[in-house]
């Protein structure tokens, strides 16, 4: 086989790609006509050049770009391990499922064990709990931070409670001070779903570095994107092995794609009831999946990572400008509040319409949408009211009063780096116009 890389002058190809892309660049904002998305990718030519470079490698499966991304991403957090997967939802699935491994002995999660979480959020933070025959225990959230209410959380912990799995809602860190105190006191596992919170800090420390696992999403709506993609981070070599086994078909062997005999004992081991020396590449220690991503995706991610610090700052900037402009309407809206001791890298700007407001959530949302400003609900609202959860076994601690308020009266608009100051001005103008009309 002739290697493509041997016959193609890549630099020439990259120059042509850049030339093509510059001819396509037509970004122009026209207020009221151009849609302002709640999120989106922010690319320049470097992502596409990397994408083409990875394509020309013709390797396609997880390869050099994945290796580079994993290293750089783990370094960003100061952690020892990053494992790329094909989505943030897969990251959650793998992180939680890893804790069911028999290799953890008595520490492992067993069917019927309880996992503390919230119902106001994205379903795939909770679904892995259900998929592993564990019991989600839903706690109510606070309005403003939209994170778990930790005030009476300790009372929800029982002998069956083994883990806490929570998202930092829309980039706002949950109360890690209290959560870590409980994690230590009751010897619980903690999985931080950081899919919306890349770059957020708590007590000056990056979220994702507190728990046993952190998960991330690289879907286009998120802080950086690969199109599809996700990652599981951990500081434990033991957990990393479990993550990679469940990700890679459940196999025992840790050879990378295309590699053989990494352990040096491929045909020299006894595994269970298999014949002695059975090929280690085909020995399975878990009921696993195949959730790897392609090197093409990782190539895009490597270029995105370089922009991450700028993306984080731009999100914070946009959030600050919206918050400043919306303050005058606090009579009508519950505006977002950063969790004490935190500095969020916001995913979005959540707004709850107060019951006393002279308009409904649906009315303001319709107005924004008709003005070309995209809105979204806080994902599943109250997951226990979703059709999918009708027959799911779960426990609710106390009442989900605020969770229902989120479902009924909350929505969010975007702060992503593609939103310019001009767009923010327009968004605030649209709010002004709506409020003026409704209060006259």
């Amino acid at each position, binding site marked *: 086989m002739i290697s493509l890389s041997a016959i193609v002058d890549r630099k020439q190809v990259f120059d042509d790609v850049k030339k093509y892309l510059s001819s396509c660049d037509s970004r122009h904002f026209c207020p009221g006509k151009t849609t302002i998305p709640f999120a989106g990718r922010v690319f320049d030519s470097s992502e596409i050049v990397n994408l083409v470079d990875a394509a020309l490698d013709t*390797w396609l499966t997880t390869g050099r770009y994945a290796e580079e991304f994993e290293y750089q991403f783990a370094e960003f957090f100061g952690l020892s391990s990053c494992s790329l997967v094909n989505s943030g939802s897969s990251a959650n699935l793998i992180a939680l499922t890893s804790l069911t491994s028999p290799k953890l002995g008595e520490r492992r999660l067993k069917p019927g064990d309880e996992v503390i979480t919230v119902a106001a959020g994205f379903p795939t933070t909770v679904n892995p709990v259900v998929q592993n025959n564990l019991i989600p225990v839903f706690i109510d959230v606070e309005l403003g931070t939209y994170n778990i209410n930790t005030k009476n959380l300790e009372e929800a912990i029982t002998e069956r409670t083994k883990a806490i799995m929570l998202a930092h809602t829309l980039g706002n860190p949950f109360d890690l001070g209290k959560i870590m105190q409980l994690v230590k006191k009751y010897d619980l596992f903690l999985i931080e779903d950081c899919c919306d919170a890349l770059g957020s800090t708590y007590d000056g420390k990056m979220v994702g570095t507190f728990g046993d696992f952190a998960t991330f999403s690289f879907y286009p709506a998120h802080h950086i994107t690969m199109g599809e993609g996700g990652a599981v981070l951990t500081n434990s070599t033991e957990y*990393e092995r479990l993550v990679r086994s469940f990700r890679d078909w459940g196999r025992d062997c840790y050879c990378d794609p295309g590699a053989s005999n990494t352990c040096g004992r491929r045909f*020299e081991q006894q595994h269970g009831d298999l014949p002695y020396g059975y090929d280690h590449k085909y020995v399975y220690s878990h009921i696993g999946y195949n959730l790897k991503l392609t090197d093409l995706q990782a190539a895009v991610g490597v270029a995105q990572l370089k922009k991450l610090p700028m993306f984080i700052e731009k999100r914070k900037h946009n959030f600050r400008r919206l918050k400043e402009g919306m303050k005058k309407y606090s009579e009508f809206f519950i505006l977002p509040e950063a969790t004490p001791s935190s500095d969020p890298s916001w995913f979005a700007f959540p707004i709850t319409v107060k019951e006393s407001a002279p308009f409904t959530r649906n009315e303001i949302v319709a107005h924004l949408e008709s003005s070309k400003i995209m809105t979204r609900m806080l994902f599943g609202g109250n997951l226990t009211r979703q059709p999918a959860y009708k027959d799911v076994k779960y426990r609710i601690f106390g009442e989900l009063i605020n969770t229902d308020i989120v479902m009924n009266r909350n929505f969010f608009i975007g702060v992503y780096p593609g939103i310019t100051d001009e767009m923010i001005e327009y968004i605030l103008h649209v709010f002004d116009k709506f409020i003026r009309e409704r209060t006259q």
Partner: protein
Amino acid sequence: MTVTTGGTIESIEKFHEDLWMLNITPDKMRRYQPGQFLQFSLDEFSYSQPWPESRTFSIASWGREYMRLLIKKTGSYTSRIFEEAVPGRRVSLKYPYGEFLLSENGNKAILCTGAGISPFLSLLDYLNKVESREEVFIFHTAPHKSYLVELGDIAQYGNVHLVAFVTRESCEFPRRRMVIDDVISTLGDDANQFTFYLCGSDGFLLSMQKELRNNRIEKIKSESWTVFKEV
């Protein structure tokens, strides 16, 4: 989380005619833990092609600007290494791998034979760098005194003690293999307080694990891939 990289052999220490230490500077230096291993190839790798023929070796150093690999000539591939390894030679590396981690806290009893000392040399580097106060006993059976590598300077490592046996020549160390009684009598009643780390041939691992369990010692970790057996 591994890295694939080229590297350069900077120097070679020839401890014995069949035991060399290669000092290699990887193009990409990544963090690893004492006890982990790597894949070494004399051939160039390509990101578009499967990984070339290679062998696994413990990383026999930690926290240095270069990596040390202790290599015993046992078969065709290691013979090729001995033929082709010269300072300046480019090689390919993939690392780190393995769960035989030596950075866990606590007193350690290390039992090894021959080149099985290799992973524990990274521990010595580690203990030196972190200024650990834990107690480490190394029980090492080697065919020649030169196999003890730089363990002769063990005093520099504070609480590290060497109990060596040399089987094929007479020197200041007993001319025989270690037996379980050497271990138990040295550690005394405290033996159960130690975590035992074993590295050597399959036969050594099996027999020593059995003997340790007979002495009610349960905290045993072993690394059996470093048997330097070649197909």
